[in-house]
């Protein structure tokens, strides 16, 4: 049994047309025993950046606080909000600091990056547990159901999906992938980010 599978859980992020979506399941378990169907794994870092943390639950809680601290220090010192690309590098260097005793988390990020002409560009990224960055253009996945998420996402994703369609696509991807994984599921939530608002929806899924 691997430590990454001890608590279970999965996260996915997808790019749409001028929008991004990030979704996760809500299960927290102690190996096969399910404990909570309400364990949050996605956290807002700024109004425009969301961070998903699948993996060991204690590290989920610790890292969420660590990143909150580092982002707050950045915002105060630089007098500006951190951009998604900069935040991704911050995540990468934070994880690599623990190269030889790593955090058991594989972070997934979704956000809207400011462009030089004042617009916003969708941005997603993921890293492995020691900070190797993955700047995919379509979708990124992590967690115990990651292999299943790859499969379904590859089949369902297409470029330039509108926010409502992106929501449907990411929801179906997540629900069907976690149904094939014993350690993920027990509820799901989805965040869709556009330049004016963030919509959080809780999905009704199989509770087995």
């Amino acid at each position: 049994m691997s430590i990454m599978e001890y608590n279970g859980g999965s996260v996915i992020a997808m790019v749409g047309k001028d929008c991004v979506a990030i979704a996760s399941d809500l299960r927290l378990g102690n190996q096969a025993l399910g404990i909570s169907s309400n364990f949050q794994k996605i956290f807002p870092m700024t109004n425009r950046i969301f961070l998903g943390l699948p993996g060991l639950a204690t590290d989920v809680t610790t890292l969420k606080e660590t990143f909150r601290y580092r982002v707050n220090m950045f915002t105060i010192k630089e007098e500006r909000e951190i951009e998604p690309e900069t935040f991704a590098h911050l995540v990468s260097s934070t994880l690599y600091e623990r190269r030889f005793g790593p955090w058991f988390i594989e972070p997934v990020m979704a956000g809207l990056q400011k462009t030089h002409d004042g617009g916003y560009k969708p941005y997603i990224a993921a890293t492995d547990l020691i900070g190797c960055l993955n700047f995919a253009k379509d979708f990124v996945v992590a967690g115990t159901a990651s292999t299943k998420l790859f499969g379904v996402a590859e089949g369902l994703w297409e470029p330039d999906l509108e926010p409502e369609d992106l929501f449907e696509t990411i929801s179906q991807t997540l629900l069907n992938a976690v149904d094939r994984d014993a350690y993920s599921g027990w509820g799901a939530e989805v965040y869709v980010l556009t330049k004016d608002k963030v919509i959080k929806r809780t999905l009704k899924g199989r509770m087995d």
Partner: protein
Amino acid sequence: MATADGGAYSYSLTVFSPSGKLVQIEHALAAVSSGTTSLGIKASNGIVIATEKKSSSILIDDSMIDKVSVICPNIGIVYSGMGPDFRILVAKARKSAQAYWKIYGEYPSTRILTQEIANIMQQATQSGGVRPYGVSLLVAGWDITRGPSLYQVDPSGSFWAWKASAIGKNMVNAKTFLEKRYNDDISLEDAIHTALLTLKEGFEGHMTEKTIEIGVVTVPSEADLAAGKIEGTGRVKPTFRKLTEEEVRDYLAM
């Protein structure tokens, strides 16, 4: 440190005088004021920083002297005061910029780097066994948040932003000269000319491309910003550069 507690190096050499002054900093400022003049001018589309390169003997190979220094692709600095202290600060500033890059994947903004340098200079006024740095710096850089910015940092560690400033031997006259000639819409070309005229005012000796150094910050064009990194390299296009001797000669001839 001979002993574990620091011994004779455990207390600061910079202590308050009864009038509330830090005399060491006053003396450091005196060292700055006796140094060669440097100046910086912020234009609407860039910044120019310049200094005299005064050698004490004609036998000195002044092509090896580096008074205007690059810290990272978007920031350069010039100084007035003690050369060796400047060298140390340049090394520390470069290291600080790289440390920032290692965490965030991008170079620091001018203000952030200036704060770092200022902190280093302040530490030398409140640490055991060290003296303050005998330089004032003019830090010029461009970043996407604030555009072009020019900061002055003093031996005390205090820093503030300028539209145009001069430091060193001739600073009073130079600043008066700049006050008359500066306006908010000055272009970079005009700023370079004004900088040269200002330097010439207090120049002892013959002003040629070999006796002055000029650094320039240019604002990236729309095309540069849209492109982001340079094709194939993943690196950002530098916004700070030193003018070559040929370019300086051309400006002097105009």
